[in-house]
Every structure is written in C-alpha cells, then in structure tokens.
C-alpha cells in the first residue's frame, strides 16, 4: 500500500545542506503492524512525516495506494491526511479547553458532513479505545495514558488506512504503555495498518516487523518471530 523508493530528504540551513534521509526504499503492506526504530537524528521522524504527507521528499518517489504522492497539491495532501492517516504524537496535542469528545470530533470538521453524525462517530471512536465514559472530561482531568487514548480515538475517527504514531508512549509509565500498545494491537487486528516510531526495543519487539534506521538509511528490516 505504501511504496517508498530511494527517498532522500535534505534540509537546507542557509548554506549548509543537512541530509536527513539518504535513499530509503521500503514497502508497507495493508494490515501490517511495524515499528521504525533508531536513535534520535536517525531520520525516523522525517520518514514518518513524509509517509504522513506532512513533508515532501527532496528526491525519490512515494506512492500510496498506487497514487503518486508527488503529483498531489497541498489541498489534496490535507485531504489525504484527513481521511487516510491518523496521527498520534508523543505530546498528545489535545486542545486543552475542549472536552475529549470535541477533541475526537476535530478531524471531522475538516471532512464535512453533518454535526449529529460527528458526535456519534466520535463517541464510537472513544468506545474503541475504552474511554466512552470520559467523553465530557477535559484533557487536564485525564491521566497521561487516557489522554493518549483520546488522541488515538481522534486518529481513528475518520477510519484511516494507516495510523502513524511518533513515540506514542514516550511520556507514559509502563502500565499505560502496555495499555496503549494493546490498543494499537486491537486496531491492527481490525485491519488498520499501524506504524510505530520509537527508540525503545521493548516496544518494537511487540510489533511484527522492525525497520532500523541509522544516519538516514535502512540498516535492517526484519520480521519479528
């Protein structure tokens, strides 16, 4: 479903060119659950941004569901982010003044549709992460693990093909980490492709496939047995 070929990303800082990715080729099938692992600066976040249509490669080709992503304009990319991808961030990035339900509804605002069905869809998404009872709580009234589950529900609400999670457990204790990983597992079993970006081997081992990045290159890509 995701085909990356010779993806290169170079950041320009004035005169200096900083290469972040140096020729990455990989493909991700529908329904996979995999992790991208590497030290900080290895390029894993850049790779995730490119996969999630937030950034464009300097060189190389990216096709998603057979469509050449480089041919899409900004509005089309925004639409793809809205419908095909669900982002989960280390920092949760919830709107602190809005309830869990409103936070989950947020992506639906940008996909149109009726107001009533929005809150219904958002409630369903909260149910899938086991937080339906907390729908009217504000993020400040929730634990870190619960906040991250709200963020996952927000990523789910538009029924995306892929969930991209960037260090989703980076701020969480071990119990919450377990919960979050099991949420991802369940979602994966329902057919959603899950890509976890992490630097923790323990977490990576719980996925089916581990891609190691080092200095902007793939140094290993193996199935977990």
């Amino acid at each position, binding site marked *: 479903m995701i085909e990356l070929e010779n993806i290169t990303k170079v950041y320009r800082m004035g005169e200096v060119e900083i290469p972040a990715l140096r020729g990455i080729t990989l493909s991700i099938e529908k329904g996979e659950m995999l992790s991208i692992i590497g030290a900080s600066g290895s390029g894993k976040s850049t790779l995730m941004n490119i996969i999630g249509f*937030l950034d464009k490669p300097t060189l190389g080709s990216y096709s998603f569901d057979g469509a050449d992503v480089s041919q899409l304009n*900004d509005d089309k990319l*925004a639409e793809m982010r*809205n*419908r095909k991808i669900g982002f989960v961030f280390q920092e949760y*990035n919830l709107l602190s003044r809005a309830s869990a339900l409103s936070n989950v509804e*947020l*992506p639906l*605002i940008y*996909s149109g549709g009726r107001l009533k069905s929005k809150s219904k869809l958002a409630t369903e998404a909260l149910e899938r992460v086991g937080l339906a009872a907390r729908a009217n709580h504000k993020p400040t009234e929730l634990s870190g693990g619960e906040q991250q589950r709200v963020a996952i529900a927000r990523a789910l609400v538009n029924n995306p093909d892929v969930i991209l999670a960037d260090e989703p457990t980076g701020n969480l204790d071990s119990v919450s980490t377990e919960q979050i990983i099991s949420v991802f597992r369940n979602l994966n079993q329902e057919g959603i492709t899950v890509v976890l970006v992490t630097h923790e081997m323990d977490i990576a081992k719980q996925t089916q496939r581990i891609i190691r990045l080092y200095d902007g290159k793939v140094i290993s890509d193996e199935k977990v047995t």
Partner: protein
Amino acid sequence: MKFIEFSGIAIKSLLSNKLRSALTMLGMIIGVGAVIILMSVGAGFQNMITSTFEELGSNLLFVQPSNPEAPRLAAIAPGYATASLTMDDAEAMRRIRSVVAVNPTSENFVKVIAGNESTTAVIEGSTPEFQHLYDFTIASGQFISEVNIARRDMVVVLGSKTAEDLFGSDDPVGQHVKMRDKRFTVIGVMEPRGMSSFGFSWDEMVITPITTYQARLFAQKTPGGQDAVQSIVVQAASAEVMDEVTEEIENLLRKRHRIAEDEDDDFAVTSLEQLMGTFETITIALTVFLGLIGAISLLVGSIGIMNIMLVSVTERTREIGLRKAIGAKRRDILMQFLLEAAMLSLVGGAIGLIGAWLVAQGISLIDLGGFTINAVVSPFIVILAISVSILIGLASGIYPAMRAARLNPIDALHYG
C-alpha cells in the same frame, strides 16, 4: 456548513479568553460608539438649524451695518460695525418694488421694574411689522402702532413670561413699568410662544416703538449725527425675487450713503438662505472633524485587534500544527482566524452601536435652554457602523490569519 462550524470555533475560542476578548473589543466599542454619537449629534444639529430657518421663512433679508475697513470682522463682531443705518433708510426701502414689509429694529438687554418686582428682558425698539414678521398673537391689549411710532409714545408690549414675572396673574394692560428710570405704560401682552431655536425666549421680551427706543432708552448716532437703527429686516414678496431685491437695496443704500464706485459698502445685506448656508458649512465641517477623531479611535481599535490576533496565533502555534496534521487546509486556518477577528470587531461594533444609541437618546433629552438637539441614529448610520466593523475586523485579521495559515505543520507541532 463549515462557515457555521468555524463561527462556533471562533466563539468558543473568544469565550475561553473572556477578559482579553472584552478588552480588545473595548477599542471597537469606543471607536464605533464615538463615530456614531458624533455623527448623530451632527445630524441632529443640522436638522435643528434647518427647522429654525424654515420657521422664520425663506423670503427675509437682513440689512446690517458693516465696516468698510473690515467687513469680515464686522460680520462676526457687530461692535466693529459703524452705525450707518437710519429710519430714513428703512423708509426708502419701503418704496422698492416687491418689498412687502420693512422692520427697523434695535435691541438691548434691559432691567424692567414694576412695583417691587423686577426682571431682565430683551428690549426691542421696533415697528408694527415686527408682530407680523415673527407671527405674534396678542393675548390682551394691542400691539404698538404707527401712531405710537410717530409720537414716540412711552408704551410697551410685554412678552408673556415678562408679564407674568412682573404682574403675576394680574392683567398688566394699563399698568406701568420702569426701564432706565423712565416710566412706560403697558398697552399689550403677547401669547406665549416658547423658545426660538436660536436659544432665546420669545416670551422674555419688551417691545417699544423704535423712535421711543432711540430717544428715551438707548440713543445711538450715525457718524452724520442721525439716529441709528441696529438692523433692518426686509420681507420680499416671494423667494424668487430675493436676488433682485437684494441688488435694489444695495444700490439704494450706496446712493443714500454716498459711497463712491471704488469704495466698500458700510452695510451688508444677508438672506436667510445665505445664513443657513454658512451654518450648514460650519456644522458639516464640525461633523467631519469630529468624525475624523472617531475614526482615529477606530484605527486604534483595529490595531488592538491585529495585535491580539498576532499574539493568539503565536500562542496557538501547536494547535494550528495539529489542525493541519489532521487535515485542515490553508483556507480552513485562514477562515478560522479571520472569523475570530471579524467577530471581535462585529460584537465590539454592535455594543458600541447600542451604547451610542443610548447616549443619543440621552442627548436628545437634554434641555439646552429651551431647545434640544434631536440626535438621530439613522438606519444608514447603523448599516454603516456594522459594515465598517466587519471590514475593520477582516482588515486587521487578514495578516495574522495569513501567518497562521502559512505555518509549517511540522515546525508548528514541535513549537515551544
């Protein structure tokens, strides 16, 4: 649909920071309020002047002394004018074709005493025409007559208020009053008339024959030694012949005053319309000037909105990054912030409008010595204020909103 939802987002975000939103709106409230109050007072003032002149009639000409050395100064400060007009001038004007009435008048303030009572009134030395020119009705007795003028009779007609002050409910006709130590017989009392829109009372007046005024009360001589009159009001047959009559009066007086071709007039003829034009020019200039001051406060208000929107965009950089990551397009972000700015401005403008309307009602109630300025907030002003508010909101919101829309989502997500 999106528009309604985005309006909801804008309202929520403004409500989540109530104090800041209120303070930002204050700029618009004051700006819009000031402009509307000033405009409505200006409009009310103009209406008042127009109705005053309509009340007097548009076929009147005022002949007044001037100063050939400084005609402009004499026009605004009568003290600088040379006493140049006489009863004979007035008599000569009567013979001009198309002239219906000529009313020479001199006036002053005077203390009037009757028994133990005393009051201050305007004394008019005038002629029988005075009654018809200004539409007075006699309540009791009679008005001054040509015979009174010819004989310089020591008689007066009292305004209703002056009569009441001096004699209470008694009929003053036949009784005596004292002015400047001289005794006058009251021959008539006028019906109450109220305030002139010029701000003086028609009812606090004492009218005496012009000849008596000159001989017994306030003597004023022309440089040639004749008795002077302060002004002569001429009524023309119709508004159409005003120019013609004006020219004839000017020719007549230049001849009578022996003014050479190259010399300036020692008098000035002004029509009511000219006076009205002058007043209108002054009020329009004043309204525009006051409006400009209001516009400056509007400008300050809009700078306030822009400032707050910039702060808000910076504060919410992460939120903007997130919204973009989950599918917001540039124009979605642009619309969200533009709507916020427009709403701040519109709500501020609406509150300013309501406040200004209340103030205008208050101003209309103030009694300015018998007359009021009817400050009107017209539908035109309301529509203007609302659309200006929206425009200002959009204008001051566009730059911050564009900044928000242009943010790179990756940088924005990791901001701060």
